[in-house]
């Protein structure tokens, strides 16, 4: 039991961090960023390149991921999303753009980093073992804690900093935010960059544990979508809650349902659909996202 909860918490922290960036971009631009998973993978590969191929310390790799992805996010917003959002008649049109970007990043990743699974050696060795009841490798504990710290820092940033407040305002009413003196195009760009940077950071963190390969992008996006649906789209706290809930569900479901084998995920997905049918806006979302 303890083990299941520990697994769930670790998974949850990891998931919540992935969902944060996605939900930030969604709330700011009303763009469902299909390329979020690819950004995450890209971040992982950057860290890999810096740490394994260039032999620099892990922390350098992490920073490199954050910076590369932030720049990439800013550029994508400025040159792609902003013009399309401005000119398209329906919000959903950006989904095609986002999907195009996802494919594009997939292609770039394949060309740059190859088809293989890549991993960065463990940053700490050893396994915590509380008389076989909780087994948790130290590196996971470290990453889990780092993830939670990042989440807390992010929330604090959004709530108490001037930039954070401006971004929240922007997400709620663009025109009003403009009338407060917020430069909408600049802050949309910052927001997108921040979202992408979070994706990059998670990629960099997780590459030490799960490794990365070019196939992970799409499924990661889908999982992140699930989380923000559970929690409520466009709401930061919802993303966090969604991440932890999905983590817990997987952890519990895989153990409880293991006897039934193949249907574990069927059950998880089906219960998700039922949940949303009952509560259409997720846990904390505004109705109708």
């Amino acid at each position: 039991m303890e083990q299941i909860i520990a697994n769930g918490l670790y998974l949850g922290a990891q998931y919540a961090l992935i969902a944060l960036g996605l939900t930030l971009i969604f709330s700011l631009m009303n763009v469902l960023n299909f390329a979020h998973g690819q950004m995450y993978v890209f971040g992982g590969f950057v860290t890999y390149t810096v740490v394994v191929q260039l032999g620099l310390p892990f922390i350098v790799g992490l920073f490199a991921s954050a910076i590369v992805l932030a720049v990439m996010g800013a550029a994508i917003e400025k040159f792609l999303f902003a013009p399309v959002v401005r000119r398209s008649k329906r919000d959903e049109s950006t989904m095609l753009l986002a999907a195009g970007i996802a494919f594009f990043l997939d292609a770039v990743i394949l060309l740059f980093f190859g088809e293989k699974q890549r991993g960065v050696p463990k940053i700490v060795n050893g396994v915590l073992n509380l008389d076989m009841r909780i087994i948790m490798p130290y590196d996971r504990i470290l990453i889990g804690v780092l993830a939670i710290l990042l989440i807390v820092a992010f929330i604090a940033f959004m709530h108490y900093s001037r930039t954070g407040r401006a971004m929240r305002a922007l997400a709620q009413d663009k025109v009003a935010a403009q009338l407060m003196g917020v430069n909408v195009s600049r802050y949309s760009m910052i927001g997108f960059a921040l979202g992408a940077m979070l994706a990059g950071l998670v990629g960099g963190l997780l590459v030490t544990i799960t490794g990365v390969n070019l196939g992970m992008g799409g499924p990661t996006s889908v999982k992140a979508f699930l989380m923000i649906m559970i929690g409520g789209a466009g709401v930061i706290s919802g993303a966090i809650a969604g991440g932890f809930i999905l983590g817990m569900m997987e952890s519990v479901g895989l153990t409880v349902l293991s006897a039934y084998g193949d249907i574990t995920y069927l059950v998880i997905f089906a219960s998700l659909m039922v949940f949303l049918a009952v509560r259409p806006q997720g846990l904390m979302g505004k109705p109708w996202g």
Partner: protein
Amino acid sequence: QNATLKIGFVGVTSGPAASWGVSNQRSMETRAAWLNELGGVKIGDKTYNIEIVPFDDQKDPKRAIAGMEKMAQDGVHYVVGPNVDDGAAAVRPVAEQNGIMYFPYAFPKELFTAPASNAILGMVANYQSGPAIYKFLKENKGVKKVAFVAANESDPLSQRESGIAAAEALGLEVVSGNVTYQVDTTDFTPVLLPVIQASPDLLVLSGVSPANAPQLIRSARELGYTGLISTETGQDASVLQEGAGELADGFISVGGASTPELASETMTEFVDRYTKMFGEYNDESNTKVYALEYILETLKANPAAIENVDEFKKTMDTFEAANPFMKGDAKLKYVGMTSFGQKRQVSVPLVVNEYKGGKFETLFVGQVD
């Protein structure tokens, strides 16, 4: 001036499963470039330059059909791929109608058993390697209890099923046989927890992709599992090294013939050329060098087959040539009588490797008939 002989490749070289097809296509291209550099391949009284015509099916059976149609259009009669079961099944009508022999890396027996006639299994199937591995482990390492995990996708699940059947036939006890995982799993601890609790002596990762293997190994070890871990698919040593480090030591997988004990000079040079061409070698390619070699050698044996696959089929029954990739006097020939009732499989050595310290070592070599 040489004529051109086109050999097709229909497989997945983009998206999540890209690694299956990329290593495949690259090994073909490496070999083709090499042969062309040597002046081409002499088939009958003509010399040909080999051209590889690739088609990315995106792991979509509908695309795979389009790819096979394109091959037919280009007058290609010999195609390597597709890489997965559904694609291999979907292209069958096109291949048979257009007279194309194809070499899928997919195991369903219907593809190779009559009335199917144009598919040739390009590697050792898991229902052939599995029993051999389990038997070896049962006899040499005292394995009694086996557990299986598989991704919940067609190929791995089919492989799990035949794996379980093989294990049971050997009198092994299957202590866990229905745990599955989504391919996008990033943390396998919850997946493996119930499996490890069943305390098997051998954990079989059915149809595991090279990307997932290190994670699974690592999670199992971190959960305190000390038994054996094996799989019947090809793996890449550097991926294991990076992803699981020394935790992967002792991991058993199926490979081609690139371990020092077996590799001929040709094989070594192949690896060098591949590395030069594409920057990095992929150990999965070991198992994928053969299809092209078989096609060319069979054509050499019967030049009439260049335009006529019926000639090819006729030749298959008697064909035999030297295996350039292996030391000793290994032979290229078609097998599969036991599994399919007709010779629709290439004979490649069943090389079972054990990972140790960043390299594979050959555990034993078997034969398929």
